[in-house]
Every structure is written in structure tokens, then in C-alpha cells.
């Protein structure tokens, strides 16, 4: 009935063992280190975790269902609320998906601006990850330092588009506004400052004996196993597999900029930390190249649909209202939106952020599925945490970089 289970290679337990007294405990959903409303049902033997079951869904808002009742442009602000600490990546991912469906190509300046803000958002996301991860493990100083720099990036977003977190800055066919020259200059001057600050974080953590003790050998996962669990992003690259959508399936201005994909070796918490810090450096490199190469011209494609695009094909011809709006959609003989389905993915800050879109030819998605990396990473939590102490579980939750807004959608 109750068989001997092998959770990890080193640690086995049996319910028939007279000395085995499992202790069940529920961690979360209001625990400060679960990064949101994640609940974990733990089975402990002493302080060791023998079984773990994540319970998700506390932050479910039904974004996918809401999207079915809104037109393509109106869905975009909803994607801000998925991974709310790197909203630019979500917006770009969704906009790119709809662009591929409609066959629109953004102008080069729009592409470069989108790439630039995406990389800034990636830095902001990694900074918040480093801050909370270090705080969980016990390094309070790093938390304060990271928030100091993140504030500067959020100020850039405020200057660019008027919002700090829920930006809604990219739009289908480019971006909504051009960036002023002064702001670009400020971002350019921020890059050397940020390099120095990353040195500071590394000085505080990378050789610190407490940090090393808490991270090396914790949550080890091999490359093949990480692939089998569907891990993407820095969590996969920490295990030694250089899979990056920016390199493998380039979008926007990524084919035109130079950057490297940092890859770890051991697949433990320390390697994932190292990969993310290196990624921040690479992101700064991309931002610098984007500002240097930024072409002139419009930031939005002329064929881009209006924000108030109609839900159904209208009867009147384009000549009747003049060439003001919706050229692509009102010409006679053209479909409002092509029918079909497609999957399009971008490299979000957490991993592969995919949008699977089914179009039935009307102005709103028939079905929109979001492949959220956080949701898939949580499924690997049991594999990573079993056999470790409960104190290490905090480090393992932190290292996966989970955002519950994205996981529960």
C-alpha cells in the first residue's frame, strides 16, 4: 500500500519505518518568502522536506478569458498584469504575436525602442529578483541597493510613457510614443553607472561565505532534467543549456545587436544567480547598442490597427471615410483579421513567454493562451526541493524567480 518512495538519490523514506514521523505543514499563501500568494503543502521529516505540493490559483484573474471579450489592442494592457515587474516584455510578446498574425512589420525605430525598453525591464526584473532572493537568504543590504537602482529604471519608464509598472508602452505595430533625446541620453549615461553597481552586488555576494554556503549545491538540476521539466530562461541556462529565444528565434532588433548568452555549469542556485548577474551585463550591452544604432523615422507601422479597432468587418469602403483609420481592415475584399492560429514566444525576464492565439477572423481573439514561465517553473519545485532543509526551500523558491501574477494569470 505505502511503498518506499525515492524522492532524491540520497534521501529515501518509508511510511512503514517506525522512526519516520512525517509532519505536514502549509507554507503560505501569506508567507513573506513565497513571493506572492504561493501555497506549499509540505511533508517534513525533521527539517528535511520529503514531499511538496504547490497550490496555485490565488491570484487568478482570468486574463485569458477576459481577452476573448476585448479587441486585439485592448488586450495589451491586460498583459502588463501578468509579470508585473517586467511588463515591457509581456507587452512586446503580445504585440509581436498579433503582428505576426496580421503580417505587420514595425519600422526600425520602433523595433529598436522596443528592444531597448525590454532590456531595461529585464534589468529591473533581475534587480528585483536579486533583491528579494538575497533578502530571503539574509542579505538585507543587497535588497536596499537593488531597489535604489531599480527606482532609476522605473523613472526612465515614467519619462518614456508616463507609467512605472503597468506601462502599456509597446503597441501592435511598434510603440505608442517616441522617446525624447534627453531621456535617451540619460539612459546612455546610466549604463556605466549600472555596470559599477553590478560590481558592487558581486562584491557583496559572489565570494561571501554565507552566500556560498546557502547557494552552492542547493536545488541542483541537470540540463536534461531541466529540459524535461520545461524550464526556460536563466533557470535552464544555469544548468548549462544555452537556449535563448533572442538568439534562436530572433525578433525585433535582436538579430542586429551583439550579445552573449551566459551559461552556468552545475545547475545549482549559485549558478542561476551568476547567470542572472551576467545577463544584466549583457542587457546593458544591448541597451547601449540600441541607443547607438537607433535609426530615425516613425515608431509605429502605418498599417498598425487603431486602438479602437472594430470587432467586425464594416460594410463601407475605405474611400468613404478617407484614409484616416484602418486601411488594412476596411479595404473591400480584405479580411478584418486573418483566420488561423499561431504560437509566438519572446524571451521574458523569467523564461520563454509564449502567446498562443486562435483567430476566427473577428477583431477579438477566439482564444488566447499564455505560456507563463513561472507556472512551469513551479512544477519543478518538488524535484528541486525534496531532500533539502526547509531553510533551503526559501532559496529554491527565490532562485526560480516566480511571479504569481504570471503563474495564476
Amino acid at each position, binding site marked *: 500500500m505505502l511503498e518506499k518512495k525515492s524522492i532524491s538519490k540520497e534521501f529515501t523514506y518509508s511510511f512503514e519505518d517506525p522512526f519516520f514521523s512525517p509532519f505536514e505543514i502549509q507554507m503560505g499563501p501569506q508567507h513573506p518568502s513565497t513571493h506572492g500568494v504561493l501555497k506549499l503543502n509540505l511533508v517534513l521529516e525533521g527539517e528535511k522536506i520529503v514531499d511538496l505540493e504547490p497550490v496555485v490559483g490565488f491570484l487568478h484573474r482570468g486574463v485569458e478569458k477576459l481577452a476573448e471579450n*476585448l479587441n486585439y*489592442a*485592448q*488586450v*495589451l*494592457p*491586460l498583459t*502588463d498584469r501578468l509579470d508585473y515587474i517586467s511588463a515591457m516584455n509581456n507587452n512586446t510578446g503580445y504585440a509581436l504575436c498579433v503582428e505576426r498574425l496580421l503580417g505587420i512589420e514595425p519600422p526600425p*525605430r520602433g523595433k529598436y525602442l522596443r528592444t531597448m525598453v525590454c532590456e531595461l525591464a529585464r534589468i529591473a526584473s533581475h534587480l528585483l529578483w536579486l533583491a528579494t532572493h538575497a533578502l530571503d537568504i539574509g542579505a538585507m*543590504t543587497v535588497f536596499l*541597493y537593488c531597489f*535604489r537602482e531599480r*527606482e532609476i529604471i522605473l*523613472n526612465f519608464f*515614467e*519619462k518614456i*510613457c*508616463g*507609467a512605472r509598472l*503597468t506601462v*502599456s508602452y509597446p503597441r501592435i505595430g511598434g*510603440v*505608442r*510614443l*517616441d522617446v*525624447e533625446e534627453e531621456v535617451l541620453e540619460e539612459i546612455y549615461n546610466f549604463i556605466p553607472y549600472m555596470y559599477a553597481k553590478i560590481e*558592487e552586488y558581486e*562584491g*557583496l*555576494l559572489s*565570494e*561571501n*561565505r554565507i552566500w*556560498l554556503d546557502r547557494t552552492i549545491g542547493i536545488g541542483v538540476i541537470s540540463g536534461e532534467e531541466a529540459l524535461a521539466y520545461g524550464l526556460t530562461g536563466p533557470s535552464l541556462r544555469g544548468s548549462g543549456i544555452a537556449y535563448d529565444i533572442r538568439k534562436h528565434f530572433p525578433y525585433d532588433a535582436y538579430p542586429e545587436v551583439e550579445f552573449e548568452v551566459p551559461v552556468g555549469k552545475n545547475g545549482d542556485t549559485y549558478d542561476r544567480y551568476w547567470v542572472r548577474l551576467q545577463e544584466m551585463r549583457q542587457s546593458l550591452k544591448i541597451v547601449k547598442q540600441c541607443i547607438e544604432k537607433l535609426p530615425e523615422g*516613425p*515608431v*509605429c*507601422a*502605418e498599417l*498598425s490597427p*487603431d*486602438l*479602437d479597432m472594430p470587432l467586425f468587418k464594416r460594410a463601407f469602403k475605405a474611400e468613404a471615410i478617407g*484614409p*484616416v*483609420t484602418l*486601411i488594412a481592415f476596411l479595404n473591400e475584399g480584405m479580411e478584418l483579421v486573418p483566420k488561423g492560429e499561431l504560437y509566438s514566444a519572446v524571451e521574458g525576464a523569467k523564461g520563454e513567454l509564449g502567446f498562443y492565439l486562435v483567430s476566427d477572423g473577428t477583431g477579438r481573439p477566439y482564444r488566447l493562451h499564455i505560456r507563463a514561465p513561472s507556472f512551469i517553473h513551479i512544477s519543478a519545485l518538488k524535484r528541486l526541493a525534496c531532500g533539502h532543509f526547509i531553510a533551503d526551500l526559501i532559496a529554491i523558491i527565490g532562485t526560480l524567480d516566480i511571479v504569481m501574477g504570471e503563474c495564476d494569470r
Partner: protein
Amino acid sequence: MRRDPKYLIFKDLFGGLLITLKTFFRKPVTVQYPKERVTIFPSFRGRHALVRDPETGEAKCVACLKCVQVCPSRCIEVKFEVNPETGARKMLEYKLEALRCIYCGYCEEVCPVGAIVLTEWFEYSSRDRAGLIFDKEKLLKNWDEFIAKYPDKLYTNKFWNLKGIPEILKPAPKREGIWVKVKE
């Protein structure tokens, strides 16, 4: 690693403490909020307002209902009447629920005349829900409160000018940009 001489002389810990010591002598970045204020940059998406036309003293809204149509959270309601002779619309009532608003700025972007705007005013919490459901008078009052503290003579918003967007995508009055005279 533990036999490493660097480990024995606590180089890692003292190196980290040196960094914190350097920061100790830097200027603090903390803003003591009620006494000090952070800078709010132009076109921050804050409290809603209906722009009062300086010539007529009424709202600039032409009741085209584009904002109602575009709002993703459907928080705007507009009532209007049509003049049977000229066919011109007149806005009678404008109800906006700030509690439902998600501050995407789509309404100010599609508005052809620059009538609705998200001002840079960010301190507008309320103790009850009714205080955050704005009607026409409240929205016009929001605008008056905002321009009373506005330093410049002319007000414009980034979403009224739409820099870098092709002309064909902008509504006709927005192609040259909209500027409102707020002070003499």
C-alpha cells in the same frame, strides 16, 4: 576553498563591509514623503480630468464615444444629446469610475480633441468608493485643481502630440498637436 588564505583572513566579509562603508558616506536616496516630494515627470498617468475649454468654460468633449469604445476596463459612461437641426452632439454626463480604471491611457490617446486627460496629479485617495467615481463636475474640478498648481502657461500631454506616430494613424486635430492655454 576553506584552506584558501583569502578565506582565512575573511577577505570576502571585509570586502563586502568596505562596500557598505563607502555607501555610508554617500548622500541618501530616501525621500521623506510627506515633507519631500518626488518629481513627477510630464505626462504621468494620474488622476483623470476633463479639459475645460478656456474660451467657452465648458468641457471640450464632443461626445464621439471613442473613449467609451476603447476603454479595456469599460469604466467610462457618456450621455449625450443630438441637436436635430445641425446634427451636433452635446455631452450631458460623463461618468468615470477611477476604481475600475487601469490607467492605460488609451482614452487620452484616442480622444480626437484632447478632452479627457490623465493629469500628473497622483494624491487622490478616498475613504469611500463614492469619492472615486467621477462625474462631469468632479472631472472639470479635477482639471481646475490641476492647472492651479501647473507652473507653465501652456499645457500639453505626450498623448496629445503622439511624437513619432505616422500622420495617418492620428485623428485629424492631433496632427499638429493640442495645446491648452491654462494661464494668461
